[in-house]
């Protein structure tokens, strides 16, 4: 078994209103200093997982996302998996 470091980035779907992003946008617009726009706020989850290989690890992570970590009605996600350093 190998240890993998997993990172999941979760973002609201483009079609879904993101109130936190809207709030940041509002503040940025009020200021004359910031030129930033199109804010979207998501979350990042990191954990480690013991698996036979990377394919098995990916499959387990996808199930975890689908069943628990992500609600696909309103969220999209990206998975990053790396071998953990000993």
């Amino acid at each position, binding site marked *: 078994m190998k240890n993998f470091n997993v990172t999941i980035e979760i973002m609201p779907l483009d079609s879904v209103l993101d*109130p936190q992003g809207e709030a940041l946008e509002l503040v940025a617009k009020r200021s004359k200093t910031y030129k930033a726009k199109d804010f979207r706020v998501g979350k990042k989850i990191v954990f480690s997982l013991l698996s036979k290989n990377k394919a098995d690890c990916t499959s387990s992570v996808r199930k975890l996302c689908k069943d628990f970590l992500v*609600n696909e009605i309103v969220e999209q996600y990206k998975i990053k998996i790396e071998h953990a350093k000993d």
Partner: protein
Amino acid sequence: MKLLSSIKLRLNMRKINFGIIQFPGSNCEEDCFNVIKNILKQNCTYIWHDSNTFTNIDCIIVPGGFSYGDYLRTGAIAAQSKISYKIKDFANRGGVVIGICNGFQILTELKLLPGILLRNQSLNFICKDVLIKIEDNTTRFTNLYEHGQIIRIPIAHAEGNLYLSKEEIDSIKTNNQIMFTYCNRDGKPTVESNPNGSILNIAGLSNKEGNVLGLMPHPERASDTVLGNTDGKKLFESIINYIN
């Protein structure tokens, strides 16, 4: 007919066994218990979230609160608890389940009800009385109300903005799953009467089979005369009426 139902409710019914689920962070379970036990004189027990089982229960209530601090998404962590799998099993076998506020959020995360409850459009936590309309009075949860009746029930939430995919909207319309809508005094589902931006002004909806209900308003906070409003009491009485 309604009068007959009410009389029957008082004279000729067995006591119904309600079970109220307690998660870490639930905070409306005692209000529900008080209504069921002290006002409606039914049997009522608390069920701890870590329990593996419950027996001899006619109706499960998933109460409001902030289960697991609303971490990750509201209701998402509670939906992973041991008892939630039992609730799902109970519902799939036709058991009557009602989720109020955070309970509604948990039932959507359990996929017992469609959609998801997002942050209110105003971004504010809203605590006030709202008017809601009974869209269907032929259900397990509304059979003692009049069709189209407008009732006043309090809400208290930050995430009550129901979001449904296009397919889910079509499905709930086809299957008559909309139970309560936010409305004005004339019963119209206006933008002004919608407190949280909920799609189609939906305040409560059922599953396709009609045995699971989720709603954001708190009927248990409008069931005791000392609180000055008993508009919510008939919801619990309807369940008792149906099960009998």
